[in-house]
Protein backbone atom coordinates (compact mmCIF):
# COMPACT_ATOMS: atom_id res chain seq x y z
CA UNK A 1 0.00 0.00 0.00
CA UNK A 2 1.38 3.38 -0.94
CA UNK A 3 2.04 6.06 1.63
CA UNK A 4 1.01 9.56 0.61
CA UNK A 5 3.22 12.34 1.96
CA UNK A 6 2.24 15.99 1.67
CA UNK A 7 4.95 18.63 1.93
CA UNK A 8 3.14 21.70 3.16
CA UNK A 9 3.64 24.94 5.09
CA UNK A 10 0.96 27.59 4.69
CA UNK A 11 3.55 30.27 4.11
CA UNK A 12 5.20 30.57 0.71
CA UNK A 13 8.86 30.28 -0.19
CA UNK A 14 9.91 28.30 2.88
CA UNK A 15 11.39 25.34 0.98
CA UNK A 16 8.50 22.98 0.16
CA UNK A 17 9.56 22.29 -3.41
CA UNK A 18 13.22 21.94 -2.43
CA UNK A 19 12.13 19.47 0.24
CA UNK A 20 9.74 17.54 -2.00
CA UNK A 21 12.45 17.02 -4.60
CA UNK A 22 15.02 16.00 -2.01
CA UNK A 23 12.94 13.53 -0.05
CA UNK A 24 11.37 11.98 -3.15
CA UNK A 25 14.88 11.39 -4.48
CA UNK A 26 16.02 10.12 -1.08
CA UNK A 27 13.20 7.60 -0.84
CA UNK A 28 13.76 6.44 -4.42
CA UNK A 29 17.50 6.06 -3.86
CA UNK A 30 16.69 3.76 -0.96
CA UNK A 31 14.91 1.53 -3.46
CA UNK A 32 11.32 2.62 -2.90
CA UNK A 33 9.36 3.35 -6.04
CA UNK A 34 8.34 6.96 -5.58
CA UNK A 35 6.25 9.51 -7.45
CA UNK A 36 6.43 13.22 -6.75
CA UNK A 37 3.51 15.43 -7.80
CA UNK A 38 3.57 19.18 -8.33
CA UNK A 39 0.29 20.62 -6.99
CA UNK A 40 1.34 24.18 -7.70
CA UNK A 41 -0.80 24.50 -10.83
CA UNK A 42 0.02 27.70 -12.68
CA UNK A 43 3.37 28.18 -10.95
CA UNK A 44 5.08 24.93 -11.66
CA UNK A 45 8.55 24.66 -10.25
CA UNK A 46 9.20 21.11 -9.31
CA UNK A 47 10.19 20.12 -12.85
CA UNK A 48 12.90 22.79 -12.79
CA UNK A 49 14.30 21.66 -9.48
CA UNK A 50 14.24 18.07 -10.73
CA UNK A 51 15.84 19.10 -14.02
CA UNK A 52 13.15 17.60 -16.21
CA UNK A 53 11.45 20.76 -17.48
CA UNK A 54 12.39 20.02 -21.06
CA UNK A 55 10.80 16.61 -21.01
CA UNK A 56 7.31 17.71 -19.96
CA UNK A 57 4.66 16.64 -22.47
CA UNK A 58 1.55 16.08 -20.41
CA UNK A 59 0.81 17.26 -16.91
CA UNK A 60 -1.31 16.57 -13.81
CA UNK A 61 -4.32 18.48 -15.15
CA UNK A 62 -4.21 16.56 -18.45
CA UNK A 63 -4.41 13.33 -16.47
CA UNK A 64 -7.28 14.58 -14.33
CA UNK A 65 -9.18 15.64 -17.43
CA UNK A 66 -8.58 12.32 -19.13
CA UNK A 67 -6.51 13.94 -21.88
CA UNK A 68 -3.50 11.77 -21.10
CA UNK A 69 -2.88 8.57 -19.20
CA UNK A 70 -0.75 8.52 -16.08
CA UNK A 71 1.94 6.59 -17.93
CA UNK A 72 2.08 9.26 -20.60
CA UNK A 73 2.40 12.07 -18.07
CA UNK A 74 4.84 10.56 -15.57
CA UNK A 75 8.46 11.48 -16.26
CA UNK A 76 11.13 9.07 -15.19
CA UNK A 77 13.98 10.78 -13.37
CA UNK A 78 17.31 10.69 -15.12
CA UNK A 79 19.33 9.96 -11.97
CA UNK A 80 17.19 7.28 -10.40
CA UNK A 81 14.90 4.85 -12.17
CA UNK A 82 12.71 4.41 -9.09
CA UNK A 83 11.62 8.04 -9.21
CA UNK A 84 8.86 9.57 -11.35
CA UNK A 85 7.66 13.14 -11.59
CA UNK A 86 4.13 14.28 -12.35
CA UNK A 87 4.51 17.93 -13.34
CA UNK A 88 1.94 20.66 -12.83
CA UNK A 89 0.34 22.56 -15.66
CA UNK A 90 1.69 26.00 -16.25
CA UNK A 91 -1.27 27.20 -18.28
CA UNK A 92 -4.21 26.38 -16.03
CA UNK A 93 -5.25 27.63 -12.65
CA UNK A 94 -5.99 25.76 -9.46
CA UNK A 95 -9.65 25.36 -10.31
CA UNK A 96 -8.55 22.73 -12.81
CA UNK A 97 -7.92 20.42 -9.85
CA UNK A 98 -10.95 18.65 -8.41
CA UNK A 99 -11.09 16.51 -5.33
CA UNK A 100 -12.53 13.65 -7.32
CA UNK A 101 -9.86 13.96 -10.00
CA UNK A 102 -6.98 14.19 -7.54
CA UNK A 103 -8.37 11.24 -5.59
CA UNK A 104 -8.53 9.14 -8.72
CA UNK A 105 -4.95 9.94 -9.77
CA UNK A 106 -3.63 9.14 -6.28
CA UNK A 107 -5.58 5.91 -6.21
CA UNK A 108 -4.09 4.86 -9.55
CA UNK A 109 -0.59 5.81 -8.48
CA UNK A 110 -1.00 3.90 -5.23
CA UNK A 111 -1.32 0.66 -7.18
CA UNK A 112 2.17 1.01 -8.54
CA UNK A 113 4.17 3.19 -6.13
CA UNK A 114 5.34 2.88 -2.55
CA UNK A 115 5.57 6.58 -1.79
CA UNK A 116 3.70 9.48 -3.32
CA UNK A 117 5.09 12.90 -2.43
CA UNK A 118 2.74 15.86 -2.93
CA UNK A 119 4.44 19.25 -3.29
CA UNK A 120 1.84 21.69 -1.99
CA UNK A 121 1.45 25.27 -3.17
CA UNK A 122 1.59 28.02 -0.56
CA UNK A 123 -1.53 29.23 1.19
CA UNK A 124 -4.52 27.38 2.59
CA UNK A 125 -6.76 27.63 -0.46
CA UNK A 126 -7.89 24.98 -2.88
CA UNK A 127 -4.51 23.83 -4.20
CA UNK A 128 -3.03 23.43 -0.75
CA UNK A 129 -6.22 21.79 0.48
CA UNK A 130 -6.20 19.19 -2.29
CA UNK A 131 -2.49 18.50 -1.81
CA UNK A 132 -3.02 17.55 1.83
CA UNK A 133 -6.53 16.11 1.66
CA UNK A 134 -5.56 12.50 0.90
CA UNK A 135 -2.29 12.48 2.86
CA UNK A 136 -1.15 9.83 5.31
CA UNK A 137 1.88 11.81 6.48
CA UNK A 138 2.54 15.53 6.50
CA UNK A 139 5.97 17.12 6.33
CA UNK A 140 5.38 20.61 7.67
CA UNK A 141 8.19 22.82 6.40
CA UNK A 142 8.79 25.79 8.67
CA UNK A 143 11.38 28.58 8.71
CA UNK A 144 12.57 29.78 12.10
CA UNK A 145 10.53 32.95 12.14
CA UNK A 146 7.25 33.88 13.76
CA UNK A 147 5.04 34.25 10.68
CA UNK A 148 6.15 30.96 9.20
CA UNK A 149 5.55 29.18 12.50
CA UNK A 150 2.11 30.73 12.81
CA UNK A 151 1.17 29.62 9.30
CA UNK A 152 2.41 26.11 10.00
CA UNK A 153 0.25 26.02 13.09
CA UNK A 154 -2.74 27.05 10.99
CA UNK A 155 -1.94 24.34 8.47
CA UNK A 156 -1.68 21.76 11.26
CA UNK A 157 -5.18 22.75 12.34
CA UNK A 158 -6.45 22.10 8.83
CA UNK A 159 -4.61 18.77 8.61
CA UNK A 160 -6.36 17.62 11.76
CA UNK A 161 -9.81 18.83 10.78
CA UNK A 162 -10.19 19.14 7.01
CA UNK A 163 -8.36 16.12 5.65
CA UNK A 164 -9.90 12.89 4.42
CA UNK A 165 -8.62 11.07 7.49
CA UNK A 166 -10.20 13.65 9.78
CA UNK A 167 -13.49 13.69 7.92
CA UNK A 168 -13.75 9.94 7.96
CA UNK A 169 -12.67 9.65 11.57
CA UNK A 170 -9.66 7.56 10.69
CA UNK A 171 -6.34 7.63 12.45
CA UNK A 172 -5.05 11.20 12.03
CA UNK A 173 -2.37 12.26 9.58
CA UNK A 174 1.13 11.77 11.04
CA UNK A 175 2.69 15.20 11.29
CA UNK A 176 6.41 15.93 11.17
CA UNK A 177 8.29 19.18 11.57
CA UNK A 178 11.05 20.06 9.09
CA UNK A 179 12.79 23.21 10.20
CA UNK A 180 14.40 24.70 7.13
CA UNK A 181 16.81 27.52 6.30
CA UNK A 182 18.17 27.32 9.83
CA UNK A 183 21.12 29.57 10.60
CA UNK A 184 22.55 28.95 14.07
CA UNK A 185 24.58 32.15 14.08
CA UNK A 186 21.44 34.20 13.44
CA UNK A 187 19.60 32.28 16.14
CA UNK A 188 22.40 33.25 18.49
CA UNK A 189 22.00 36.89 17.55
CA UNK A 190 18.31 36.64 18.29
CA UNK A 191 17.26 37.27 14.67
CA UNK A 192 15.73 33.84 14.36
CA UNK A 193 13.77 31.47 16.54
CA UNK A 194 15.70 28.51 17.89
CA UNK A 195 14.78 24.86 17.37
CA UNK A 196 13.49 24.81 20.94
CA UNK A 197 11.35 27.91 20.42
CA UNK A 198 9.72 26.43 17.35
CA UNK A 199 9.14 23.05 18.97
CA UNK A 200 7.73 24.75 22.01
CA UNK A 201 5.21 26.66 19.90
CA UNK A 202 4.24 23.83 17.57
CA UNK A 203 4.81 20.80 19.82
CA UNK A 204 5.50 18.59 16.86
CA UNK A 205 7.87 15.73 16.22
CA UNK A 206 11.05 17.14 14.70
CA UNK A 207 12.14 15.09 11.70
CA UNK A 208 15.12 17.28 10.95
CA UNK A 209 16.76 20.66 10.69
CA UNK A 210 17.92 21.81 7.25
CA UNK A 211 20.56 24.50 7.42
CA UNK A 212 20.50 27.66 5.32
CA UNK A 213 22.89 26.65 2.58
CA UNK A 214 24.25 27.92 -0.72
CA UNK A 215 24.21 24.37 -1.97
CA UNK A 216 20.42 24.59 -2.33
CA UNK A 217 20.60 27.33 -4.90
CA UNK A 218 23.44 25.65 -6.75
CA UNK A 219 21.48 22.42 -6.85
CA UNK A 220 18.29 24.01 -8.11
CA UNK A 221 20.15 25.97 -10.77
CA UNK A 222 21.59 22.75 -12.10
CA UNK A 223 18.30 20.85 -11.77
CA UNK A 224 19.64 18.23 -9.38
CA UNK A 225 17.89 17.66 -6.04
CA UNK A 226 20.26 18.82 -3.31
CA UNK A 227 20.19 15.42 -1.60
CA UNK A 228 22.43 14.13 -4.43
CA UNK A 229 25.10 16.61 -3.36
CA UNK A 230 26.28 14.29 -0.64
CA UNK A 231 29.03 16.60 0.51
CA UNK A 232 26.71 19.51 1.16
CA UNK A 233 25.23 20.20 4.58
CA UNK A 234 21.69 20.58 3.20
CA UNK A 235 22.08 17.35 1.22
CA UNK A 236 23.15 15.50 4.35
CA UNK A 237 20.32 17.04 6.34
CA UNK A 238 17.81 15.69 3.82
CA UNK A 239 19.50 12.28 3.82
CA UNK A 240 19.12 12.20 7.61
CA UNK A 241 15.47 13.18 7.29
CA UNK A 242 14.71 10.36 4.86
CA UNK A 243 16.54 7.87 7.06
CA UNK A 244 14.66 9.00 10.18
CA UNK A 245 11.35 8.88 8.34
CA UNK A 246 12.12 5.28 7.38
CA UNK A 247 12.73 4.44 11.01
CA UNK A 248 16.46 4.84 11.44
CA UNK A 249 17.70 6.68 14.51
CA UNK A 250 20.10 9.47 13.75
CA UNK A 251 21.20 12.27 16.03
CA UNK A 252 20.10 15.74 14.99
CA UNK A 253 22.71 17.92 13.30
CA UNK A 254 23.07 21.49 12.04
CA UNK A 255 21.51 22.92 15.18
CA UNK A 256 24.66 24.38 16.64
CA UNK A 257 27.00 26.92 15.13
CA UNK A 258 29.47 25.64 12.60
CA UNK A 259 32.54 24.24 14.22
CA UNK A 260 36.04 25.14 13.14
CA UNK A 261 38.21 22.82 11.12
CA UNK A 262 38.92 20.70 14.18
CA UNK A 263 35.22 20.33 14.89
CA UNK A 264 34.52 19.50 11.27
CA UNK A 265 37.07 16.73 11.31
CA UNK A 266 35.97 15.13 14.52
CA UNK A 267 32.50 16.35 15.34
CA UNK A 268 29.81 13.96 14.23
CA UNK A 269 27.20 15.82 16.15
Amino acid at each position, binding site marked *: MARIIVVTSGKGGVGKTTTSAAIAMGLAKKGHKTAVIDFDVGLRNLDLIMGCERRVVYDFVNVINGEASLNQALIRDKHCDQLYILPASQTRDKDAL*TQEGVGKVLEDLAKDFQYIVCDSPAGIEKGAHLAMYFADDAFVVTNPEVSSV*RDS*DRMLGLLSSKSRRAEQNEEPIKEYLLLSRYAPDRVKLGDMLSVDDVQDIL*SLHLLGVIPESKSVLTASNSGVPVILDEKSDAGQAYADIVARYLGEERPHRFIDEKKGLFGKLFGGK
Partner: protein
Amino acid sequence: MSTDSQNTPHSTSVLEFKSSTFSVPVLVLSNNDLDAIEQQLQKKIQLAPEFFKNSPIVFDVQELNAQKIDIDIAALANVIRKFGLMPIGIRGGNEQQAKSALDLHIPVYSIHNNLSSDAPKQQKNTTQTTEISSATLITQPIRSGQRIYAKGDLIIMAQVSAGAEIMAEGNIHIYNTLRGRALAGVQGNPDARIFCFDLQAELISIAGNYKISEDIKDSTRNKPVQIYLEEHTLFIQDIREH
Protein backbone atom coordinates in the same frame (compact mmCIF):
# COMPACT_ATOMS: atom_id res chain seq x y z
CA MET B 1 -14.46 29.11 -13.12
CA SER B 2 -13.58 28.34 -16.68
CA THR B 3 -15.46 25.59 -18.39
CA ASP B 4 -13.60 23.10 -20.39
CA SER B 5 -15.25 20.88 -22.97
CA GLN B 6 -13.04 17.98 -22.00
CA ASN B 7 -14.21 18.43 -18.50
CA THR B 8 -17.65 16.92 -18.97
CA PRO B 9 -16.95 13.35 -17.93
CA HIS B 10 -15.88 14.74 -14.55
CA SER B 11 -18.66 17.26 -14.10
CA THR B 12 -19.96 16.79 -10.59
CA SER B 13 -23.29 17.54 -8.99
CA VAL B 14 -23.65 21.07 -7.71
CA LEU B 15 -25.13 20.32 -4.32
CA GLU B 16 -25.16 17.85 -1.55
CA PHE B 17 -26.87 17.63 1.83
CA LYS B 18 -24.65 17.09 4.79
CA SER B 19 -25.39 16.99 8.44
CA SER B 20 -23.32 19.19 10.74
CA THR B 21 -23.49 20.16 14.35
CA PHE B 22 -23.09 23.80 15.27
CA SER B 23 -22.68 25.55 18.55
CA VAL B 24 -25.01 28.48 18.84
CA PRO B 25 -25.54 30.68 21.87
CA VAL B 26 -28.97 30.32 23.42
CA LEU B 27 -30.62 33.30 25.05
CA VAL B 28 -32.64 32.00 27.97
CA LEU B 29 -35.32 34.48 29.02
CA SER B 30 -36.86 34.69 32.44
CA ASN B 31 -38.87 37.88 32.00
CA ASN B 32 -40.99 39.37 29.23
CA ASP B 33 -40.06 43.01 29.93
CA LEU B 34 -38.56 44.01 26.59
CA ASP B 35 -36.96 47.17 27.97
CA ALA B 36 -35.19 45.22 30.67
CA ILE B 37 -34.11 42.62 28.13
CA GLU B 38 -32.78 45.32 25.87
CA GLN B 39 -30.82 46.98 28.66
CA GLN B 40 -29.24 43.79 29.94
CA LEU B 41 -28.46 42.58 26.47
CA GLN B 42 -26.68 45.81 25.71
CA LYS B 43 -24.56 45.47 28.83
CA LYS B 44 -23.60 41.91 28.00
CA ILE B 45 -22.73 42.73 24.43
CA GLN B 46 -20.60 45.70 25.36
CA LEU B 47 -18.38 43.36 27.33
CA ALA B 48 -17.47 41.29 24.30
CA PRO B 49 -18.75 43.05 21.19
CA GLU B 50 -16.60 40.98 18.85
CA PHE B 51 -17.92 37.76 20.21
CA PHE B 52 -21.54 38.71 19.62
CA LYS B 53 -21.09 40.51 16.32
CA ASN B 54 -23.33 38.87 13.70
CA SER B 55 -23.66 35.90 15.98
CA PRO B 56 -26.56 33.53 15.34
CA ILE B 57 -28.78 33.12 18.37
CA VAL B 58 -31.59 30.86 19.52
CA PHE B 59 -34.02 32.14 22.10
CA ASP B 60 -35.38 29.91 24.74
CA VAL B 61 -38.75 30.86 26.22
CA GLN B 62 -39.38 27.66 28.10
CA GLU B 63 -39.03 29.27 31.49
CA LEU B 64 -41.41 32.07 30.57
CA ASN B 65 -44.00 29.59 29.50
CA ALA B 66 -43.51 27.54 32.64
CA GLN B 67 -44.41 30.70 34.56
CA LYS B 68 -47.25 31.40 32.13
CA ILE B 69 -45.69 34.66 31.01
CA ASP B 70 -46.31 35.47 27.37
CA ILE B 71 -43.88 37.34 25.20
CA ASP B 72 -44.29 39.01 21.83
CA ILE B 73 -41.93 37.03 19.58
CA ALA B 74 -41.85 39.61 16.79
CA ALA B 75 -40.97 42.41 19.21
CA LEU B 76 -38.34 40.24 20.86
CA ALA B 77 -36.78 39.40 17.50
CA ASN B 78 -36.60 43.10 16.73
CA VAL B 79 -34.78 43.87 19.97
CA ILE B 80 -32.31 41.11 19.31
CA ARG B 81 -31.66 42.13 15.73
CA LYS B 82 -31.05 45.70 16.87
CA PHE B 83 -27.82 44.46 18.48
CA GLY B 84 -26.61 42.77 15.34
CA LEU B 85 -27.50 39.30 16.59
CA MET B 86 -29.27 37.03 14.15
CA PRO B 87 -32.12 34.96 15.55
CA ILE B 88 -32.04 31.52 13.94
CA GLY B 89 -34.43 29.67 16.17
CA ILE B 90 -36.78 29.50 19.08
CA ARG B 91 -37.36 26.71 21.52
CA GLY B 92 -39.70 26.05 24.39
CA GLY B 93 -42.39 28.21 22.85
CA ASN B 94 -46.12 27.53 22.88
CA GLU B 95 -48.16 26.96 19.74
CA GLN B 96 -48.91 30.62 19.26
CA GLN B 97 -45.25 31.60 19.68
CA ALA B 98 -44.11 28.87 17.34
CA LYS B 99 -46.51 30.17 14.75
CA SER B 100 -45.37 33.77 15.03
CA ALA B 101 -41.74 32.60 14.86
CA LEU B 102 -42.43 30.69 11.65
CA ASP B 103 -44.18 33.77 10.24
CA LEU B 104 -40.86 35.55 10.80
CA HIS B 105 -38.98 32.68 9.10
CA ILE B 106 -37.44 31.68 12.41
CA PRO B 107 -37.25 27.89 12.77
CA VAL B 108 -38.72 26.17 15.81
CA TYR B 109 -36.58 23.71 17.75
CA SER B 110 -37.81 21.09 20.14
CA ILE B 111 -36.56 21.12 23.68
CA HIS B 112 -34.15 18.37 24.52
CA ASN B 113 -31.11 20.52 25.10
CA ASN B 114 -28.62 18.07 26.41
CA LEU B 115 -29.09 14.39 26.48
CA SER B 116 -27.23 13.89 29.68
CA SER B 117 -29.16 16.35 31.81
CA ASP B 118 -32.11 14.06 32.31
CA ALA B 119 -29.99 11.01 32.93
CA PRO B 120 -30.68 10.22 36.56
CA LYS B 121 -27.17 9.46 37.82
CA GLN B 122 -25.22 12.14 36.05
CA GLN B 123 -21.86 12.80 37.63
CA LYS B 124 -22.20 15.78 39.90
CA ASN B 125 -20.21 18.66 38.63
CA THR B 126 -20.35 21.29 41.28
CA THR B 127 -22.97 22.78 43.44
CA GLN B 128 -23.66 25.41 40.85
CA THR B 129 -27.22 26.21 40.09
CA THR B 130 -26.59 26.76 36.41
CA GLU B 131 -27.18 23.70 34.34
CA ILE B 132 -23.89 22.33 33.18
CA SER B 133 -23.74 19.39 30.87
CA SER B 134 -20.88 16.94 31.10
CA ALA B 135 -17.38 17.98 30.16
CA THR B 136 -15.78 17.92 26.74
CA LEU B 137 -12.30 16.39 26.66
CA ILE B 138 -9.80 17.27 23.97
CA THR B 139 -6.40 15.64 23.69
CA GLN B 140 -5.15 17.18 20.44
CA PRO B 141 -3.58 20.63 20.19
CA ILE B 142 -5.99 23.41 19.24
CA ARG B 143 -4.24 25.16 16.37
CA SER B 144 -4.37 28.69 15.04
CA GLY B 145 -7.67 29.30 13.25
CA GLN B 146 -9.55 26.58 15.11
CA ARG B 147 -12.55 27.27 17.31
CA ILE B 148 -13.99 25.04 19.98
CA TYR B 149 -17.27 25.53 21.78
CA ALA B 150 -18.31 23.36 24.71
CA LYS B 151 -21.71 23.43 26.33
CA GLY B 152 -20.35 22.38 29.68
CA ASP B 153 -16.79 22.29 30.95
CA LEU B 154 -13.91 22.09 28.53
CA ILE B 155 -10.82 20.07 29.36
CA ILE B 156 -7.84 20.30 27.05
CA MET B 157 -4.77 18.14 27.52
CA ALA B 158 -2.72 19.75 24.74
CA GLN B 159 -1.70 23.29 23.96
CA VAL B 160 -3.99 26.02 22.66
CA SER B 161 -2.09 27.93 19.97
CA ALA B 162 -2.05 31.64 19.34
CA GLY B 163 -4.89 32.42 16.95
CA ALA B 164 -7.10 29.64 18.32
CA GLU B 165 -10.30 30.31 20.26
CA ILE B 166 -11.87 28.09 22.87
CA MET B 167 -15.20 28.77 24.52
CA ALA B 168 -17.16 27.00 27.19
CA GLU B 169 -20.37 27.65 29.01
CA GLY B 170 -18.69 26.16 32.05
CA ASN B 171 -15.08 26.06 33.22
CA ILE B 172 -12.01 25.68 31.04
CA HIS B 173 -9.09 23.51 32.11
CA ILE B 174 -5.94 23.47 30.02
CA TYR B 175 -3.24 21.08 31.16
CA ASN B 176 -0.75 22.76 28.89
CA THR B 177 0.11 26.17 27.47
CA LEU B 178 -2.64 28.66 26.65
CA ARG B 179 -1.54 31.03 23.87
CA GLY B 180 -4.87 31.68 22.16
CA ARG B 181 -8.16 33.07 23.44
CA ALA B 182 -10.10 31.36 26.18
CA LEU B 183 -13.64 32.39 27.09
CA ALA B 184 -15.36 30.63 29.97
CA GLY B 185 -18.92 31.09 31.16
CA VAL B 186 -19.88 32.43 27.75
CA GLN B 187 -23.58 32.18 28.57
CA GLY B 188 -23.03 34.51 31.47
CA ASN B 189 -22.02 32.20 34.27
CA PRO B 190 -19.83 34.39 36.55
CA ASP B 191 -18.71 31.39 38.59
CA ALA B 192 -16.93 29.79 35.67
CA ARG B 193 -13.14 29.65 35.92
CA ILE B 194 -10.18 29.15 33.64
CA PHE B 195 -7.24 27.02 34.71
CA CYS B 196 -4.07 26.61 32.71
CA PHE B 197 -0.54 25.35 33.20
CA ASP B 198 1.19 28.16 31.39
CA LEU B 199 -0.54 31.47 30.77
CA GLN B 200 0.47 33.23 27.54
CA ALA B 201 -3.06 34.00 26.36
CA GLU B 202 -4.11 36.55 23.77
CA LEU B 203 -7.38 37.02 25.61
CA ILE B 204 -9.12 35.56 28.63
CA SER B 205 -12.75 36.13 29.47
CA ILE B 206 -15.28 34.99 32.03
CA ALA B 207 -18.93 35.77 31.46
CA GLY B 208 -17.95 38.55 29.09
CA ASN B 209 -15.42 40.21 31.41
CA TYR B 210 -12.16 40.04 29.58
CA LYS B 211 -8.48 40.90 29.67
CA ILE B 212 -6.27 41.07 26.62
CA SER B 213 -2.64 40.01 26.52
CA GLU B 214 -1.40 43.53 27.28
CA ASP B 215 -3.43 43.62 30.49
CA ILE B 216 -1.88 40.43 31.82
CA LYS B 217 0.82 41.26 34.33
CA ASP B 218 4.26 39.76 33.94
CA SER B 219 3.94 38.30 37.41
CA THR B 220 1.28 35.88 36.21
CA ARG B 221 2.57 35.31 32.71
CA ASN B 222 4.13 31.90 31.95
CA LYS B 223 2.76 30.57 35.23
CA PRO B 224 0.19 27.96 36.16
CA VAL B 225 -2.83 30.03 37.05
CA GLN B 226 -6.51 30.08 37.76
CA ILE B 227 -8.65 32.93 36.54
CA TYR B 228 -11.90 33.83 38.25
CA LEU B 229 -14.39 36.63 38.47
CA GLU B 230 -15.21 38.68 41.53
CA GLU B 231 -17.54 41.64 41.25
CA HIS B 232 -16.98 41.97 37.52
CA THR B 233 -13.22 41.99 37.92
CA LEU B 234 -11.01 39.24 36.61
CA PHE B 235 -8.42 37.89 38.98
CA ILE B 236 -5.44 35.87 37.86
CA GLN B 237 -3.83 33.84 40.58
CA ASP B 238 -0.86 31.52 40.63
CA ILE B 239 -2.35 28.13 41.42
CA ARG B 240 0.58 27.27 43.66
CA GLU B 241 -0.17 30.23 45.90
CA HIS B 242 -3.69 29.14 46.51
